[in-house]
């Protein structure tokens, strides 16, 4: 990730003393505006009575804490299953797309392009409503189909990004097609694509919250149950205040990991023959360029 330090872009010159003074003024004004906004929100929170005792009591009860934890556990469970399955599906579909047999390649392409173009929620609802499946399998199926298809593209572009000489050298050594793939191309491709893969898993983690819409008892669902309780005076805002940092924190940790892996892999001598992808989830343009190798301006 390129730092947005002044001077790192083509936009500005290094500021002189007068410009620096002006920037400091802008800085103070911005800080004041942000502080005013925060103060206004806090005032609104107090004004609409969000900090009353009744609204925050539910979080003291052990039963409710346990319910929240169970919801969080269910979220993580759905994420874990979906992540493993979509990695597997992605590998299978990528193998299909890289196959030498045209029918296989064609079938894999159709599957990948279709599921990438569909909203995940439509798939989840289809499995849940039309196939009458339980919420957890429905959620996992939808997430797997979508993320598996995107990951297939990520894997494929990773393999395609390995320098041509690697493949040629391997064939010249007398390796077979499968050996070339498993010993030479895939290990380098996976290393190069690891940041993009982890970023796609962040997408999967975020999308587990869609389970809320099909009554899967995940974290948000637990929050909704507390929030719509009249005994505690409908504590919607307190629930949002408690739940969002946890959700956002989990996703941020995983994103941070992706960035860290990207930096680490870029320095690693094992990725010399392939460009490491930036830590961003796959693109969605049909026929679009997946993240990474061909993105301009990055090494």
């Amino acid at each position: 990730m390129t730092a947005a330090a002044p001077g790192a872009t083509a936009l500005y010159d290094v500021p002189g003393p007068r410009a620096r003074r002006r920037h400091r003024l802008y800085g103070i004004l911005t800080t004041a505006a942000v502080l005013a906004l925060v103060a206004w929100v806090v005032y609104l929170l107090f004004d609409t009575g969000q900090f009353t005792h009744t609204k925050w009591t539910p979080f003291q009860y052990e039963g409710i804490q346990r319910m929240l934890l169970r919801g969080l556990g269910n979220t993580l469970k759905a994420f874990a299953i979906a992540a493993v399955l979509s990695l597997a599906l992605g590998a299978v579909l990528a193998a299909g797309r890289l196959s030498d047999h045209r029918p296989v390649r064609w079938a894999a392409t159709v599957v990948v392009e279709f599921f990438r173009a569909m909203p995940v929620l439509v798939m989840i609802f289809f499995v849940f409503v039309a196939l009458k499946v339980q919420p957890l399998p429905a959620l996992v199926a939808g997430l797997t189909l979508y993320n598996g298809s995107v990951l297939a593209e990520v894997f494929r572009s990773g393999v395609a990004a390995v320098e041509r000489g690697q493949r040629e050298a391997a064939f010249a050594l007398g390796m077979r097609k499968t050996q070339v793939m498993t010993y030479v191309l895939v290990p380098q491709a996976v290393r190069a694509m690891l940041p993009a893969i982890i970023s796609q898993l962040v997408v999967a983690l975020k999308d587990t919250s869609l389970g809320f819409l099909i009554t899967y008892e995940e974290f948000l669902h637990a929050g909704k149950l507390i929030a719509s309780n009249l005994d505690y005076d409908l504590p919607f805002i307190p629930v949002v205040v408690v739940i969002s940092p946890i959700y956002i924190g989990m996703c941020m940790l995983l994103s941070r990991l992706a960035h860290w892996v990207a930096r680490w892999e870029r320095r690693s001598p094992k990725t010399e023959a392939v460009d490491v992808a930036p830590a961003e989830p796959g693109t969605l343009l049909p026929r679009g360029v997946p993240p990474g190798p061909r993105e301009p301006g990055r090494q």
Partner: protein
Amino acid sequence: MNVLTDNLPLFGEGFLGTVELTVYSSLLALALGFLMASFRVAPVASLRAVGTVWVAVLRNTPLTLLFFAVLLGLPRFGLVLPFKVFAVLALGCYTSAFICEALRSGINTVPRGQGEAARSLGMTFGQTLTLVVLPQAFRSVIPPVGSTLIALAKNSAIAGAFSVTELLGTYKTLGELGYDVVWTFVWIALGYLVVTLAISALFTALERTWGVAR
């Protein structure tokens, strides 16, 4: 087949709802994304901080949680608006973070020498920006912005689940009327394909006209 022909008005209404949501949210996302991108490349540290926080938080927020907070939370502040406006707000703010990143990396692809050359020719900041930097950034930004807007169109389905008039929402009504669910979903899927393919075609055309010569 007759699921579609019998309920053309209903499907049409849902389809238009999706298109409307997509268009309005795209406009909001592009405007906000541009603003935040300009914050993120600003020479003022606190503006950069605002942009960074905006992107980091919104990119890592599940959209369902955002909808939950906006649709059910904001009314608690006494802010009562139609559901559609809330949906546009949530979708637009969420997508603006991704647009911002796309625009920022577009600006960063312009080599520094371009700006230095422009300044050494005596161009003002405004001229450097509008004549040199932005035209070049615009080229490389087309594909990522296109894929972000496609993602936005697909995300609008979540609004349907929160009972905003939208394509996915039609399945409920049709289910109650006793139509075949599988066919209903086939037509819904087709509707989304039309929207996403239209956006994709638009951006492919843009790319062909203005994209980077590879």
